């Protein structure tokens, strides 16, 4: 059964459905572990070892190395767990939005403010 009830994809949007959840399980499980300060420290001490411990595939591991949110989503990442990964580097959702849209943070914030007018 189709999860998307629309007859078209939504541009720039990946619905986090069973396909993504299956693909991204290891990646999301690792990011979920970043709720714990101890785990965040362990990741920072040896990033590659931490990714291996959670069984990330090559695509996921590369996307983590690249700190690239669109690549992380393509690798099955869910934004709520990815936000915890971003938190390790002090990134907020506007940093993440700016990166994904190829804008500066200031331009991204201006775009948000413009939506209110």
């Amino acid at each position, binding site marked *: 059964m189709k*999860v*998307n*009830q*629309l007859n078209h994809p*939504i*541009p*720039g*949007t*990946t*619905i*986090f*459905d*069973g396909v993504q*959840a299956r693909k991204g*399980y290891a990646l*999301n*499980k690792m990011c*979920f572990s*970043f*709720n*714990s*300060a101890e785990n*965040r420290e362990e990741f920072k001490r040896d990033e590659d070892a931490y990714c291996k411990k959670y069984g990330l595939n090559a695509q996921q591991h590369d996307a983590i190395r690249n700190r690239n*949110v*669109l690549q992380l*989503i393509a690798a099955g990442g*869910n*934004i*709520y*767990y*990815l*936000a*915890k990964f*971003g*938190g*390790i580097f*002090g990134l*907020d*959702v*506007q940093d*993440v*939005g700016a990166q*994904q*849209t190829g804008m500066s943070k200031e331009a*991204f*914030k201006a*775009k*948000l*403010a413009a*939506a*209110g007018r």
Partner: protein
Amino acid sequence: MAKIIGCITTTHVPSIGGAIAKKLQNDPYWSPFFDGFKPVHAWLKKVKPDVAVVIYNDHGLNFFLDKLPTFAVGAASEYRHADEGWGIPVVAPFRGDLDLSWHLINTLVDKEFDITTCQEMLVDHAFTIPMSLLWPGGESPPVRAVPICINTVQFPIPSARRSYKLGEAIGSAIESWDSDAKVLVMGTGGLSHQLDGERAGFINKEFDLKFMDSLIKQPDWATQYSSTELVELVGSQGVELLMWLAARAALPGPVHKVHSNYHIPISNTASGLMLIETVH
């Protein structure tokens, strides 16, 4: 029997927690948002609810993809917040209400909502921030609480129609609770926003305002939309309006809009607030 006094629906953006901790309520960026709560504070002082049923969505604090309930009801004497990974301060625990929790659980299952019961449940910013907004000052809120969580992390998420029906069932359960408590229903999340993908930053003011209006004039209006239609209309995370729908559906009989506020942006989100009281 218990009495439902009204519902309050509000945005729960994490950065609000940071702004509260840094006391930025009067900062020019934040004041259009925080000022919106002043009439809510006055109303709460007047009506003094005893219990709050808080309909919210977890973002990966209590639930992970290993076991992800569509609907979950808290059944704990205390609910704790915890580290969510990106640095908002952890707030003090909240008191539960076991009698209402189990009455809700028994009634909802009887009405064919096969909910998950949680005798231990961490509550994330979607629960804690609205509590801090309604009862500011850093002390524990003067209400007991029952959290009800709706999945919006992983599709398929429950439809708007199903969430509305859940709200109706919650309302009739509260009304059949043998207690003299005054009960407030809260719905947290939204309004339009999208955090992920090239479409990040998407906001739909026209739809949000129409939706808020519908909660007074025709509360089941948004149930015409499928979940993916809602993603298209309000963004991937804007689907949190399901919490608003469920909270509104819990109100019995005629209602009166006491207050509303709408402001863009708070973080990446169109922030909304509504206070609707029941007319007895």
